[in-house]
């Protein structure tokens, strides 16, 4: 599966990620957590080759990410960003099936797979005929997940997938997604700045700060055995928020 081996990245003079190693646990959900600018998105983008490391290696099933190997590896990774990244010129169905059609999958296979995913993501089939601009925020993220899951990838990468949604839709999708991740037993890496969301999804939480991993573990680990003062500070700042009462 995926392994980051001592990767580091700077943008100009700014260090985005100090030398870091990470292997997300197979079949589980790993959450990259931290304040904005901590390097969690950079880490996620390194995993799908949108950013190349200055040093170190990113391996997928033992193959290093490189220009020659990257597209084949990406076909085995699903990637969803905050606003979904759906292409506005294609309707929802064409967005979902774009890669499968490009790769020449059979129409019958595509139809069957889309039907399956509609059921999984609870999207009414007629919504697939609409363009992204005609979908609600929640529908857009469901369609984006359908697109990411279309080829049944080994790894699912989600960059703040629910951050742009209203609280209600967000709560609903959180519940559904957790169920789906468990059912599919996918290896998931999810980026969030929200402790509640991290606690909800994360089998393991990777807390980051200023380009470094500060602590890895469960929420309980973070609460009971904080690695340093920042962990305590970060955790308590968010727990003070009354909305988190449910999660705790």
């Amino acid at each position, binding site marked *: 599966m995926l392994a980051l081996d001592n990767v580091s990245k700077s943008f100009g003079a700014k260090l985005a990620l100090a030398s870091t190693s990470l292997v997300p646990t197979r079949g589980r959900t790993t959450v990259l957590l931290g304040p904005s600018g901590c390097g969690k998105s950079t880490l996620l*983008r390194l995993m*799908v*080759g*949108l950013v190349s490391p200055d040093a170190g290696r990113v391996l997928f099933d033992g193959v290093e990410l490189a220009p020659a190997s*990257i*597209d*084949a*590896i*990406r*076909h085995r*990774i699903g*990637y969803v*960003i*905050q*606003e979904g*990244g*759906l*292409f*506005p*010129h*294609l*309707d929802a169905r064409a967005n979902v099936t*774009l*890669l499968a059609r*490009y790769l020449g999958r059979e129409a019958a296979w595509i139809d069957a797979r889309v039907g399956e995913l509609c059921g999984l993501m609870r999207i009414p089939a007629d919504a697939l005929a609409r*363009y*992204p*601009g005609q979908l609600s925020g929640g529908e857009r993220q469901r369609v984006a997940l359908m*697109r990411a899951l279309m080829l049944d990838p080994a790894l699912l990468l989600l960059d703040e997938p629910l951050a742009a949604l209203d609280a209600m839709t967000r709560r609903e999708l959180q519940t559904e997604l957790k169920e789906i991740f468990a059912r599919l037993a996918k290896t998931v890496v999810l980026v969030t700045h929200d402790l509640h969301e991290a606690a909800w999804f994360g089998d393991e939480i990777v807390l980051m700060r200023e380009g470094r991993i500060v602590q890895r573990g469960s929420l309980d680990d973070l609460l009971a055995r904080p690695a340093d003062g920042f962990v305590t500070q970060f955790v308590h700042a968010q727990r003070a928020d009354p909305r988190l009462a449910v999660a705790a």
Partner: protein
Amino acid sequence: MKRPWPALLLLGVTNCALAQQTLVIGSKRFTESYILGEVALQTARAAGAQAEHKQGMGNTGILFAAIKSGSIDLYPDYTGTVARELLESEASDLESLNRGLQSLGLGVAVPLGFEDTYALAMLDSEAQRLGVKSISDLAGQAQLRFGLSHEFLNRNDGWPGLVRTYALPQAPSGLDHGLAYEALAARQIDVMDIYSTDAKIAKYKLRVLLDDRHFFPEYEAVLVYRLDVPQRFPQAWAALQKLQGRISADRMVAMNAAAELDGKGFGEIAASFLASPGSSSAGSGGKASFWSLLFGDDFWRLTRQHLVLVFASLAAAILAGIPLGVWAARTPVAAQPVLASVGLIQTVPSLALLAFLIPVLGTIGTWPALVALFLYSLLPIVRNTYSGLTDIAPPLRESARALGLPAGARLRLVELPLAARSILGGIKTSAVINVGTATIAAFIGAGGYGERITTGLALNDNAMLLAGAVPAAALALLVHALFELLDQSLIPAGLR
């Protein structure tokens, strides 16, 4: 941008080769030149030669470039012009001119029998009353009011030299040439400067004063020809030589008047001259109306030519411009050089570009016009392709990469469709501008609605000018509407 050039050049050269058996006559863009071109054309045809006349190709520079390159075989010009503008010498006798032109493979011959030079004129009645026949006679008439064109007032071969040569006592006032005739007729001025074959000499009953001290340089009408013409077209050349001394200044004035004041066609005027060189060609027949000109016999030919100019150049610009824009968008170091170069082309005045392309392509007419329109069309298309692609939101670009689509597929399936509105906007702009710019092509004989505009300008005929300008404007609107419809079908529904 590189690819179309060799092909265009090749076609241009082939074009020349095929045209070799036809005697190609050019003319400048004013009435007298059109008429003399027609006279030469009909003379050559009457002698059995295959001949064509590229009417009103442009100014002296364009004609000279065209004849040097062999695009045309001969055209009418004036000895003084050949000496001053082409050879940059003062000597304007035929022998000196031929010596100067020989190395270029050119010559001048067949002095037609009249001069078209600066002259001074008065109302004939007034001149008779005062007994003024020559410019010398003006020295004793200090009370006469001179209204002279600004150009004449300042040229060395105009007023400054004239006043020295003839010791004239009058103080002239500057006056627009077009107004001077009316001012003279209304007796607000007494003396004006004219061209000696001006059409209005007869209309206003003017007397052209004799230049008795030979101050004005000689602008004798002659044919400028390629030295191989007598051998390639012996019969036509023999017939053309017989035109020598056949056109008097009065006759030329009458022919100019037939075109400018009576609205007769150049071909008709030339035909009636050749039928009876001795008599005046004044006759009936007023100017044709706008409506009859608009849908005249040439309407469909001009429309076809105009459409070919606009859309052939546009098609080439799309084929070259979109890849250029893509390249600029993908290669940051290329972006500014590419955009600056296509922008620079836009700053070259169209007539200058056409004049420059004639020797480069070795031909006149459609090809240089197409190349010029192609070059002008590039900027909006390249620029809008570039900005359409670079304006795509980074998350969308990254989503396409993260899907695992290779670069070519990303371009085809995602980026170009997302940039479609911008690219189509650029193509639309180019098409509409092309419709207007294509009217300029008539200056170098490429036809289109511009043919009527150039003729209208040369004849000071507003109806003719409008008969060219109105369909060009209508076509621009039509093209715009057409592209609005195309937008509906070509821009993906999700982007509208």
